[in-house]
């Protein structure tokens, strides 16, 4: 996906054309409530990066600065465990990861993200979100609200998983010894 060429005066008077990037952004839950005009302004604030197979996107413990949306390819999320690398999940086109870095000031990546095949990722960073909030606060607030919704959903999922695990442990014959 090549960026459209920019020339001073044609850009001032250019008519809006929907690009494939707008399609990918509009399908992402964080940007699903944005209008076409807002998506167009967002297009200038995201970064398109290409990754080769087995190329890390970021390592566990790195300082995070933004999130990534998978436009093409697959990305594995891995963590270090005592036994070695533990594959948490594999994400495909349309998924996103690293969104906590948008709001956490000292975010350290809790896992490693590594491309499993030739992948195209779209990066959206904290500085661009802050710039969006300064210049287009309506759009920025919509993105923040959707981000809060996503984080709330993930917190609920994590709580349910912990409850299930705790319930399974209580039903386990070894529960008494553990307790």
């Amino acid at each position, binding site marked *: 996906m090549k960026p459209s060429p*920019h020339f*001073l005066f044609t*850009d001032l008077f250019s008519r809006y054309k929907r690009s494939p990037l707008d399609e990918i952004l509009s399908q992402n839950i964080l940007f699903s409530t944005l209008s076409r005009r807002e998506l167009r302004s967002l297009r200038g604030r995201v970064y398109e*990066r290409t990754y*080769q197979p087995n190329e890390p996107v*970021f390592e566990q413990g790195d*300082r995070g600065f933004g999130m990534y949306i998978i436009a093409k390819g697959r990305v594995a999320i891995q963590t270090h465990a005592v036994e070695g690398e533990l594959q948490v999940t594999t994400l495909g086109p349309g998924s996103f990861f690293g969104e906590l870095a948008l709001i956490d000031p000292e975010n350290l990546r809790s896992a490693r993200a590594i491309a499993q095949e030739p992948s195209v990722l779209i990066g959206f*960073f904290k*500085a661009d979100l802050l710039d969006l909030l300064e210049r287009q606060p309506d759009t920025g607030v919509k993105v923040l609200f959707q981000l809060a919704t996503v984080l709330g959903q993930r917190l609920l999922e994590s709580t349910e998983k912990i409850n299930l695990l705790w319930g399974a442990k209580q039903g386990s014959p070894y529960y008494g010894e553990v307790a």
Partner: protein
Amino acid sequence: MAKSPERSDFRDRVRLVFAVSVVLGIGAVLFALPALGMPTLLGGVLAIASSPIVAWLERRGFARGFSVLLVTCVGAAVFAGVVTWGLAVLVKQWDGFSERFPVLFEQAVGRLRASEEVWRSKVAVFQSLHITDALLQAVSGSKAWAASNAARVMGDALVWTLLAPFVAFVLLKDGSLVLRQFYALIPNRYFEETVMVSSKILEALALYVRAKLLEGIVVGVICGVGLAAVGAPYAWVLALIAGVTNTIPYVGPIVGAVPALLIPLFDASQASLLWPILLVFLVANVIDSFLVFPLFVAQVVDLHPLVLIAVVMVGQSAYGVIGMLLSVPLAASAKVVGQELYAALLSRRMRARSN
């Protein structure tokens, strides 16, 4: 076909070196060619100063392109008006000043020689000093330099000030695109850190420039009002000089006060204005030092005063007054880069240990 990790490492390092070389190369060209560097610097300052106004217009629903065009046109019109007014005032006052200057100069030299004789008779160490002759030598040297270079310097300054609004327009409109083209050169493994560091540097530079501009405006207005109130001639021209020179760290307030203080020293009829003019500059600098600087500038720079002094001295020895102006923002940027590089190295070392 997947590349080997070693080949990828080498390729990434080559790309990073290339990207850094591009930045350093552009910086070196701008540094070496003032005809390019000065309009770029002035345009950058104008862009940073205008950016909050552009953001304000965008918040009200105007498109970015239109906002930039409007701000640039209005800014250019105001700038042209100020320059036209300033030139008219300057030409009018210069004509009168140049007619009276030889007489005033002779009077000042006479008074200096008389004072020198008095001090020589009182203090033995002054007998070996020839301050008036040394000053006359320095002045004649400056006169010779001014005679051969003044026209060129004024011509250059005029071209720079005419080009600066165009540079500001391009930076406001397409500056982020240029930055994105630079990011495309950065390999993936360093991409996020580069974006983080460059955004912090740009934020620090923008805050510093806006803080210094505000400081200059406050000092200029206080001096203008004060000098006009005490009846000093050329009050607003002197205030403009004081406001502009105030941006030079440490010596700026002194440099700004010198032209105003020379008036009562040169012109005996204005001698009574010496203490009022001194008081005006003292009040302006006290307000600057205790109110404006701590509130707006100090927290942006966040460098130890000794470090600031050393940095300003290095800037002055490297590139004169321009070096002094640029040294502090460059030092603040270097501090950001150093902090981020250190944090990145630390996290990589911790990761290597945990692996």
